[in-house]
């Protein structure tokens, strides 16, 4: 039977087992929306802005191991989606974005709502396609899902001109797919694995450092087993939190610009570093030259060869899927009788740990943001899915919420996209309808996609929004305090809305909390309201800063602690 391009698009989504599509209709995708209307397998979530559609698909993907799908129209629909696509690209999140395009005969004529979507998105997608013939549509969508999910995952965009979505052809969904130019590695080289094992077993001051690759590869179990077997200290990047249980004794906390003292010093002073699915970025190791001052052997496991030796010299590069490589390492380590001697190193680490770098001075007068995060962790039993926006609140959530499982911590690490948290939480809540989902945000970030409170109403998504409202763009203010002579240029937000009434106007529940003594009861009440979206507007200390801090361009051991000031 012949189907239209629009019908084929929806059939392909069904074949891929897509549960939700996040999108917004418009002229160029009318046929696709018509095809969506005539079926009930793929559910559509109507957002209020295309950026949110992509973030929601992203949150859905991050909290599961599935490909997130977004559907937007041509022109402004596509350009609005770009921030979401770039966010997913920087964090290697598997997604397929379907965009409408003006009809093929109009392309290049500056038609209404025409934009070169493939050109605009090229630098922020893993790959993209413009489908010019309906006969290529099914195979292109098949390729798109394959590319998005395999190798180093990432967003793939498929641009479908309006006439292509209305042309008919015979539909058959390809069972297999192969792209002759694309062969991601699975297993690492046997020689490198053997070298790595020898290096790990003879380490005196080892550290395991893992990132988002462990989460994406589904390798948390292997990472945990390996780290325990070796008895090594481990630290996670912001993207890697949950890859190793945060409440475990071997866990040193997050590292990097706002990482713990013990994690950063261990990273700086180790003699053997096992880097797993992490990429030594500037927010993690600070100044490369400073990091290089201490000689250490580096074993780097990553599926993307271009991540290896990009910023630091690597002694043992292992290109492969993290889960497979860790399996191979585990098998070799189990076969060995040797045990590394790391007692002296642990003694040193415990000394660093005893600085208790995350301690803060609580107050009876004003709500401390760290206190809210601690209570959030307690009251949700550490079991919540926590999304966040970007800024101080993001760092406090990362520092004080202990994630014991992967895919529970959902944040924009690479691109640092304010406005990510709420739409991402929508995707998470749809993927896990029975789970507790909290969105930690600030009064700046939440306003970047606050219109999604309307989507939450329509689709009954009882997310708990935990806003740390300090009346400042806090992280900007912190940098201005430290590095720009206290000149708070445009970091103060005057005329904030009344978030309680705003939330109520959207049909939800709002709470304003001003006293430290009310924090716990407010959180308890909010989380007890299983069926309501609750916006908790915590009026927090506007002067509070995030510590520890490794200033930009400095080395990991040049850290500022709260007690230093």
């Amino acid at each position, binding site marked *: 039977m012949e189907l239209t391009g629009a019908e084929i698009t929806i059939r392909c989504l069904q074949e891929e087992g897509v549960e939700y599509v996040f999108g917004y209709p418009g002229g160029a995708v009318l046929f696709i929306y018509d095809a969506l209307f005539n079926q009930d397998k793929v559910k559509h979530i109507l957002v209020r802005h295309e950026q949110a559609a992509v973030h929601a698909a992203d949150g859905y993907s991050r909290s599961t191991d599935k490909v997130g799908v977004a559907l937007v129209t041509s022109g402004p629909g596509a350009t609005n989606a770009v921030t979401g696509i770039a966010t997913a690209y920087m964090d290697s999140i598997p997604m397929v974005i379907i965009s409408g395009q003006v009809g093929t005969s109009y392309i290049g004529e500056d038609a209404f709502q025409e934009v070169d979507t*493939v*050109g605009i998105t*090229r*630098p922020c997608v*893993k*790959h993209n396609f*413009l489908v010019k013939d309906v006969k290529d549509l099914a195979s292109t969508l098949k390729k798109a899902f394959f*590319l998005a999910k395999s190798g180093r995952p990432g967003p793939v965009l498929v641009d479908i001109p309006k006439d292509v979505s209305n042309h008919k052809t015979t539909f058959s969904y390809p069972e297999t797919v192969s*792209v*002759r*130019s*694309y062969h991601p590695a699975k297993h690492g080289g046997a020689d490198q694995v053997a070298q790595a094992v020898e290096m790990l077993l003879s380490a005196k001051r080892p550290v395991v450092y893992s990132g988002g690759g462990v989460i994406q590869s589904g390798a948390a179990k292997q990472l945990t087993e390996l780290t325990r077997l070796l008895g090594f200290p481990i630290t996670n990047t912001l993207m890697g939190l949950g890859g190793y249980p945060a409440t475990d004794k071997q866990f040193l906390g997050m590292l990097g610009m706002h990482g713990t003292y013990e994690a950063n010093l261990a990273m700086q002073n180790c003699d053997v570093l096992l880097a797993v699915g992490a990429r030594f970025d500037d927010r993690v190791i600070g100044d490369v030259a400073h990091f290089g001052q201490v000689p250490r052997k580096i074993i780097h496991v990553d599926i*993307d*060869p*271009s991540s290896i*030796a*990009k910023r630091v010299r690597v002694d043992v590069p292992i290109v492969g899927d993290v889960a497979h490589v860790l399996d191979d390492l585990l098998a070799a380590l189990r076969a060995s009788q040797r045990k590394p001697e790391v007692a002296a190193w642990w003694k040193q680490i415990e000394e660093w740990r005893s600085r208790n770098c995350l301690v803060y001075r609580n107050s009876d007068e004003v709500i401390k943001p760290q206190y809210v995060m601690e209570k959030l962790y307690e009251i949700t039993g550490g079991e919540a899915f926590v999304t966040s926006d970007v800024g101080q609140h993001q760092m406090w959530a990362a520092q004080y919420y202990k994630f014991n499982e992967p895919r529970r911590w959902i944040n924009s690490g690479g691109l640092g996209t304010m406005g990510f948290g709420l739409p991402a939480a929508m995707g998470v809540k749809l993927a896990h309808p029975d789970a507790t989902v909290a969105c930690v945000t600030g009064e700046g970030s939440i306003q970047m996609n606050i219109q999604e409170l309307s989507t939450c109403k329509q689709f009954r998504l009882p997310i708990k929004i935990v806003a740390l409202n300090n009346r400042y763009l806090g992280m900007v203010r912190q940098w201005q305090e430290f590095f720009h002579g206290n000149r708070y240029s445009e970091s103060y937000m005057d005329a904030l809305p009344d978030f309680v009434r705003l939330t109520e106007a959207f049909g939800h529940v709002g709470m304003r909390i001003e006293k430290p003594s009310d924090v716990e009861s407010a959180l308890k009440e909010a989380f007890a309201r299983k069926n309501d979206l609750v916006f908790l507007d915590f009026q927090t200390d506007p002067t509070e800063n995030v510590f520890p801090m490794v200033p930009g361009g400095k080395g990991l051991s040049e850290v500022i602690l709260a007690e230093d000031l």
Partner: protein
Amino acid sequence: MRHIISLLMENEAGALSRVAGLFSARGYNIESLTVAPTEDPTLSRMTIVTSGSDAVIEQINKQLNKLVDVVTVLDLSDGEHLERELMLVKVCAKRADRDELTRLMDDFHGRIIDVSDNTYVVELTGSGEKLDGFLAAIDHSLILETVRTGASGIGCGERILRL
């Protein structure tokens, strides 16, 4: 250091801009870039002349390999290879200049491929240095226009770049 990199990629719309975009986005140098379909019409072959430290060249090779449209990459500079570039030069060829131009053509193995009352178009093929040498040797006031293709490269002997 200067490197000459050869690659095969899918002969599809947009493939060239993916490569060009990669170089500009990551701040890599492009000295020249040439591209044309191969004997297999589904494949294009590109030659890129670039420069950078060893670390940068390593990244360039990896990033090129990462592009989904790129089938295979060979850094020709890693081994023995040949480079050729084509240059067309339109020169002022008044009677008085013609002997000198003919002598230069002999020296550089060039060919005169178009003649008018006052101009020649000359064709030269060779390494970039040879073409530079020609431009240095000829009286500059005679040059009306030049066009160069950029280098094409191929490995020597058994070094073969194919699917």
